Structure formats: C-alpha cells, structure tokens
C-alpha cells in the first residue's frame, strides 16, 4: 500500500500555471489552495483575480472565480461578500495592483473592516508588463523604468503596505511573510490559513503580504532571486505579525 506524502492540491485546477520558471506565484497559489481545502472552504469560495501576472488566477483555483479591473479587486470582493456573506471571498493581488493603482480600494476595504481575505504578493516589480518599477521596488533596484536603479530623491522609498494598513482601525489581521525557503513557506501557509479562518469566523479584514521572487523580471536565476528576497527584501520589509485583533463580529 502506498501513502501519499505530498501531491498537487485539489484546490488547484489542472490548468498549467502560466508563470515563469521559479516565480513565487506558484508557491503562493499552492498555499492558498491547500489552506482552503484543509479548512473545508474551497467549494464555497470565490476568487477575485486582479490585473498583472496573476490575472488568470480564476483559472487556477478550483472554485468560482472572477477577474477584476486593475486595482479594483477589493471593491469587487466587497460587492460579492456583502451580498453573499456566507461565502468565502478573497482577492489575489500583486504590488502594482494593490500598492499603486488600487490603493484607494484596499485602504477602504480595510477601513470598513470588510470581512474578506487579501493575498498581497509583493515582488517589487511589474512582472506582466515587462519589469517596470513598482511602488515596492527597492532603492537602487534596476527595472525597465528605473534603468539606473530606483532613486530615493526622485521616486521615494518603497511603500510599506503592511505597516500602513496596520494603522487602519478596522483592519483585523495583517501579517508579512515570505516564501523564499521551506521554513518560511510553512510560516506563510500558517498566516494564509489564519486569514481564511478569520473570514470564516466573521472576524473582518485580513491581509497576508507575501514577499515573492520575480526571477525573470529581476534578471536573476530562481535560486539567486530567492536569496535576494531573503537578504535584500526581508531586510527592508520586516517579516512578522503587524496586527491581530480578531474578534468575531
């Protein structure tokens, strides 16, 4: 008899992931899918995909899904959740989507304390459009629109989303994680699971920021990119719990 030690989560569809080799999106997708399956929530979940590399996320998660306009995923999720409060609704957004064009939508979903889950993938770049500078690009980091590296005097220092959102009174749970190695993947999964559990328990707005690698966009090998996340990104973006005020409403 054989026992399965690890296999692809049934929370993911058979559609092959369209991400580049070594892209962290695939790892984060697995953690979301596994969490939803383990919590028994998958079939009653609605994915709200955003614009960027994860635009096709509604094809990858094995549940109902919808594709939102750039930055508007939290507003779409709120429209779904408020009219269907017994369903699980999550947005899956990158840094261009959430931290640039969608700042109003994410801030006000948190501000209202909307009972949704947000998976925020911070890979410090616009991957889909060819590697342009994001609000989260590190100072000195070269991109196709910061060819000499991001300059603090012209482009400011990167936006700290988890820190910012944790100051919002009605936000419930904010944690920053990373998926650059297996111990951190385990921690990220715990956080993602908690963010969904919170929603199931009606605790309000939960967001997990995940530091992620974009090897192709950064011009690095996947292994070097994982090291860049561990050394450079995690030192500017401190990992950890920023807010946890989970009280069922």
């Amino acid at each position: 008899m054989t026992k399965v030690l690890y296999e692809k989560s049934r929370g993911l569809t058979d559609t092959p992931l369209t991400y580049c080799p070594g892209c962290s999106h695939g790892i984060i997708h697995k953690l979301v899918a596994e969490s939803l399956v383990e919590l028994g929530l998958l079939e009653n979940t609605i994915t709200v995909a955003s614009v960027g590399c994860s635009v096709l996320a509604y094809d990858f998660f094995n549940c109902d899904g919808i594709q939102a306009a750039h930055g508007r995923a939290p507003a779409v999720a709120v429209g779904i959740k408020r009219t269907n409060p017994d369903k699980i609704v999550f947005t899956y957004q990158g840094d261009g989507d959430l931290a640039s064009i969608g700042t109003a939508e994410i801030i006000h979903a948190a501000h209202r304390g909307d009972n949704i889950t947000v998976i925020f993938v911070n890979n410090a770049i616009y991957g889909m459009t060819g590697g342009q500078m994001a609000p989260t690009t590190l100072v000195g980091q070269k991109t196709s629109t910061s060819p000499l590296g991001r300059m603090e005097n012209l482009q400011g220092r990167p936006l700290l989303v988890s820190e910012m959102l944790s100051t919002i009174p009605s936000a419930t749970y904010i944690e920053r994680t990373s998926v650059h190695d297996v111990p951190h993947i385990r921690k990220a999964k715990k956080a993602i699971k908690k963010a969904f559990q919170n929603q199931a328990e009606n605790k309000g707005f939960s967001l997990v920021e995940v530091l992620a690698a974009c090897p192709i966009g950064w011009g690095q090998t996947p292994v070097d990119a994982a090291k860049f996340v561990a050394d450079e990104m995690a030192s500017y973006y401190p990992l950890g719990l920023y807010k946890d005020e989970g009280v069922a409403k």
Partner: protein
Amino acid sequence: MAKNRLTVDTVVCKGCILCVPACPLGILAVDKETVNAKGYNPVKCTDMDACTGCAMCAMICPDSAIRLEREV
C-alpha cells in the same frame, strides 16, 4: 527497494531548480538527458534509496510538479 517514491511531472516542471538546494540530502539534479515540450530540462532524483520523504522539494516547487509516496 526504495521506501519512498518521488515522481516529477516532467511535462509541468519548468526546471527552475528551486528544489535542488531545498533538498537537505542534495539528491535532486537537472536531468540533462530530457527536454520537455516547453523546452525545459526537468529535475530528477539521483538517489531514491536515500530519500527520506521530507517533501521539502515538493513544498517549494511552484508548479506542484513533485509527488511523493511512501510504501507502508
């Protein structure tokens, strides 16, 4: 016979080799003899007998290309 069985979905594997340094025993390597339809060299296990089934390779694989089973 090996206690654990590691299967790589060579169609799906993109050869990113994140699993190679993740393996504590260093028994994963690029299979240079194989090229899949996407043009990638997938990984393979070089010493199945040594595999402890810790699944760290599978956990870090972005494409869920690694499946691990154990004979019980």
